[in-house]
């Protein structure tokens, strides 16, 4: 299970600036369980966006957005409303946003930040990886996570070490930033690369005590106390 929380409304609305219409995608997996991207939240998001003057061309809740084959088969009946939209708002974890961005040729905006669970990463089939950094940057990088796609985890662009589009460290591995460039170029959004991304807040990458407070954690704590 991957835990996510919705981004602040102003941030989401900011991503949609200059766009008139949007298609909303939710996920029946972890995002539903997190209360951030299940059918209920997708419905709420739809009315909020409409109130804000955006046209919602359609919506869909897929189980699960981390599975690219599933995304493609489930969205087959939604091709027209997706085509009619300027972008897709993806209400799920960082893995889901990346999988949708890879599967659908559309600008994908992340609606959630993925919360760090302190090591429990859940399971998925695809190649997309999410560091659960708590400050999703996929809006600026074409739906490809620079923290995981770039070996150095650079967030402001390519280092000088790429050769023939491959990483200096491993000639088998694509340079994450060249993937990002090619994706954004295809989406006609290279302007996003010019944005200065400020230093990350690593506090947000730390799992908080509440998150760690599963019933088992509480039990372990009690037994430690008893031992003491």
């Amino acid at each position, binding site marked *: 299970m991957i835990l996510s929380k919705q981004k602040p409304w102003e941030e989401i609305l900011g991503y949609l600036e200059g766009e008139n219409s949007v298609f909303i995608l939710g996920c029946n997996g972890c995002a539903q369980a997190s209360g951030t991207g299940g059918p209920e939240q997708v419905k709420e998001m739809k009315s909020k966006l409409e109130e804000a003057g955006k046209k919602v061309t359609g919506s869909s809740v897929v189980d699960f957005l981390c599975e690219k084959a599933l995304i493609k088969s489930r969205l087959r009946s939604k091709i027209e409303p997706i085509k009619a939209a300027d972008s897709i708002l993806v209400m799920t974890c960082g893995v889901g946003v990346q999988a949708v961005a890879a599967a659908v040729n559309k600008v994908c905006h992340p609606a959630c930040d993925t919360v760090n669970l302190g090591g429990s990463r859940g399971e998925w089939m695809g190649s997309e990886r999410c560091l659960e950094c708590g400050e999703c940057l996929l809006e600026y990088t074409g739906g490809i996570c620079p923290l995981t796609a770039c*070996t*150095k*985890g*650079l*967030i*402001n*662009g*390519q*280092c*000088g*070490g*790429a*050769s*023939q*589009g491959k990483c*200096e*460290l491993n000639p088998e591995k694509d*340079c994450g*930033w*060249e993937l990002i*460039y*090619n994706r954004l*170029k295809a989406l006609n959004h*290279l302007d996003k*690369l*010019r944005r*200065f*991304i*400020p*230093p990350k807040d*690593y506090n947000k990458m730390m799992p908080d005590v509440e998150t760690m407070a599963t019933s088992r954690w509480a039990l372990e704590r009690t037994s430690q106390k008893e031992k003491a």
Partner: protein
Amino acid sequence: MSLQSVLESGKFVITAEVGPLKGTDTTEIIEAAEILRGRVDAANVTDQQSSVMRLGSLATSHLLKEKGLDPIFQMTCRDRNRIALQSDLLSAHVLGIENVLAITGDLPSLGDHPQAMPVYDLDSVQLLWVISRLNQGYDMVGNELKGKTNFFPGAVVNPGVNTEAGFELQLIKMEKKINAGARFFQTQAIYEPEKFYKFMKRVEGFKVPVLAGIIPLKSVGMARYMNKSVAGVFVPEELIKKMADAKDKTQTGIEIAANLIKELKDISQGVHIMAIGWEKKVPEILDAAGL
């Protein structure tokens, strides 16, 4: 004269590189400083180059300064978090260091401590932004400093990245670095002036001086190694053949470097000579280039 004033005067600028060694023996650094003083405008001090642990760039920059050579303190983001980076910048200012070159840094797995944790808390663009903040009298979170810094920040660019995406990404990042405060650039080694000219045409509008990188060739093996393993560096076959045919390889390496400098003189604002162990030959290279 400071590097900043030389660059602003429009004079063709020469910088060289001094690489601290592993250990506390500073004899070679002092010798290099004596040889380079008066011949170059400033000298870069590399920071744990190629992720190999050595004497630090801050202390070495200070030594150069004491010897009357204007240091360019290289700072990578690989080994220090934002607290240590800012603190070392304050220390550098107190030691009289004026020029800082902000770089991301090679991965530790390429060096002699591959087990090390790569830090990269900040990247080169963010480090430039932090330097600008310190110059304004604030740390990166907005706390006021008692005594601000006065750095002349520089950055690097690799004009030789060999895909369209990579080349464009380098230009985009260069612009981001300028917006974050970079006032001059040094490049990866250049062996093809015609290609470099195209790069310079693209960055003309940025109005920031670019010093072209020069690495003197020492052997055929070195040229082949760089072509295979150093991203963005390409030594054309013609130069490799020249080295192979040469009776005196050292002399030929010096001549090739000098010729490159002559060709780059009209298309860049200066050159940055990375002699990698040949620091003592820099004056010969400059003599041969007529500088």
